[in-house]
């Protein structure tokens, strides 16, 4: 994960195991990150990413995650999708 000027960019092609590390990394920088951007140019490898994004938002609602602000969004390899949060 890259964090440049409080903007964290995460790679959507990470597998589950890598996502686990990522989640810890984000957690340690949770107060530093202002915005989280998903790089999906390589496709989405695991649907666990979606839950992770929601968890980030739950942990720090001030973090801006553009994907979660949209009713639907298009991702490489998945197409048009939406997240329905309980």
């Amino acid at each position: 994960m890259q964090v440049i000027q409080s903007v964290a960019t995460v790679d959507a092609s990470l597998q589950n195991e890598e996502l686990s590390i990522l989640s810890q990394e984000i957690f340690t920088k949770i107060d530093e990150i202002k915005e989280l951007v998903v790089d999906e140019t390589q496709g989405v490898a695991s649907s666990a990413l979606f839950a992770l994004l929601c968890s980030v938002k739950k942990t720090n609602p001030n973090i801006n995650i553009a994907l979660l602000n949209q009713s639907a969004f298009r991702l490489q390899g998945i197409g048009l999708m939406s997240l329905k949060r309980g």
Partner: protein
Amino acid sequence: MNKHDRVMEIFLQECKEILEDIAPKLLNLEQTPDNKEIINDIFRGIHTLKGNANSFGFTKLGGFVHYFEDLLSIYRQEGKKLQSKEVDIFIRSFDIVELVFSYEEEGREDYPQDYHKILEEIKTSIDEENSQETHENSSVVFDEVVMESTYEHNENIDISQLLTMLQETKFEYKNQELGEKKLHIVEMHLDNDIYLRGYNHQIFFRLLSELGEILYSVYEIDENLPSLEDFNTEISYIKSLTLYFLSDKDLMDIEDVFEFIAQEHEVNIISITPKEIEQILLKTQEQISLKKATLEQEQTILTEEKRLAPQEKTKSSIRVESAKLDELFDSIGELVIAQSYISQNEQIRSLNNKELDQYVNMLGKSTRLIQNKVMGLRMIPIRDTFLKMRRVVRDVSQKTDKPIELILSGEDTEVDKTMVDKLSEPLIHLLRNSVDHGIEATKEERIAAGKEPEGNIYLSASHKGSSFVIEISDDGRGIDTQKILRKAREKGFAKEDVNYTDEEIVEFLFHAGFSTAEAITDISGRGVGLDAVKRSIEDLRGKITVETEFGVGSTFKIILPLTLAIIDGLTVRIEDETLIVPTLSVVESFSPVLEDIHHVKGDGEFINYRGEILPIVRLNKLLNLNTKIIPFAESTFICVDHERGRYILQVDELLGRQQVVIKSLGLLSNNIKEIAGVAILGTGNIALILNIEGIRDYLDLEVVR
């Protein structure tokens, strides 16, 4: 009249009242678009109109107001802000409603011009608003309905999600090229250990892509999702995945893709044709409309109850046909005559019975009380008529591109309802004239004249003495009397060799066929109008006058009696004739002092009345009752008040005062301007009622001669 006709009459009357009620509110809305109370009022009126129209098979009206109501209902919602564009649609829609109502009333088969055009505008506005509403997904009604909706094959389709999918993907289910393709909705309920068992959504996506097109997918995240601290990537927090998949393959082929996961998880696949999508949507739309209507009805009832609740404590009202009111009024007239007959009956008087006299007095008081009350029933404020005029000025102002403010005053002044009904047309005409001819053509012209760019028109009502006075003033360019005179001479109304005063010149405006307008427009300038205005006012036993100052503005003043039916009168005698002078015009009666009377050769007789020189009218001469010259010393003088100046009536004797019911002389009195009508006295005799206005006209003409 059969029952249906009676009901129809009530319906038509109610519709007219609703329309009259809505018209001024729309203009208020233009000024205060945020006022939800006004929108609610208009909505309620249109809602009732719709119900009535449909009940009576007025399909053109019903069809139109149905959509108009839908549009209004959108703006009843809190947070929905009205812009001037929407208010303009409301106003133009209302115009169509009024027109189509008159078409229905006349039984016309055709549609008013612009009916379909405005209807389309309304529908477009509704569609635009609804699409926003769907996008915002904020409608409670919508959510409730889609939650309750089920597909007719008893298969649970999440209608809300389906609609969102259609909205997001712009999927054209009506596209003919879809052929045999079906929409497959695959819903997978997933356990939280699927990652441990090798689940990978990419497998499904790849396999499905070979069979068709994945339009949309929805991942449902567990509501018990932990925060990052406890987040575990081995656990799936995705409760379900729904795929919207378009394919022409058999259902079995699609089921095969999910075969391995279906062994341990719940997988539902619903296949629907594009036609079925359309049916679902239609059904849903119906349910939404039904639900909305029910909710609105409930809301309307609640609001109505709320609105009425506090008023019920203070006053209640019932609807009475105006014809019944007229009958009651006539009956009261007869009662007044009967009471007068009893109180003046010589036989009763000669009994000298104090108790009987007391009862007769009581009867007189009660009769007067009832009469006043019934009179009051006919008196209504001029407010509604005035508010209608705001619309007139608004429209003409827009057409002529002249910014104008109409300033109203005295809207609560009461006048006989019969007169109110007949005042609209003359007022419309005068106001249109004020805008079209009175106010300067351009802002620049006004600024150059040292005025504000915006023109002002003042419409006021007031009671003055026995009269009801309406004034229409403008701060425009005033009347160019020289131009009027030239035109009057061209048309042969004025003589070339006569010098006319400004007042006389302005009078030419009221000649039939007179117009100074350079061009004929649909607003004015046809040369018909002011003469018709004058006739209408005279029919109401009124008078119209004009005051104007070139470059400053003009004032048209309409002077009318307060009521057309009963007057309080002073009974007077001339020889053997009994006459009635309307009491409200009487200043006082007195015996003249001969030194105060002056004769001016050719100009008549005058009296110095408290420092004011007033003309004397010998009524016996005016009415051709006899040719005798009655000495002033043997007369009684009555000073009467009039807008154009007081004058003195000479009579033989003052008999008394009584309320009389005015009976028309019909065609007989058309050419006798000095007589307003007749009254049947208590004695059974007939008395002529003097027309104070007509006598003043006679005096003015005498001066001219």
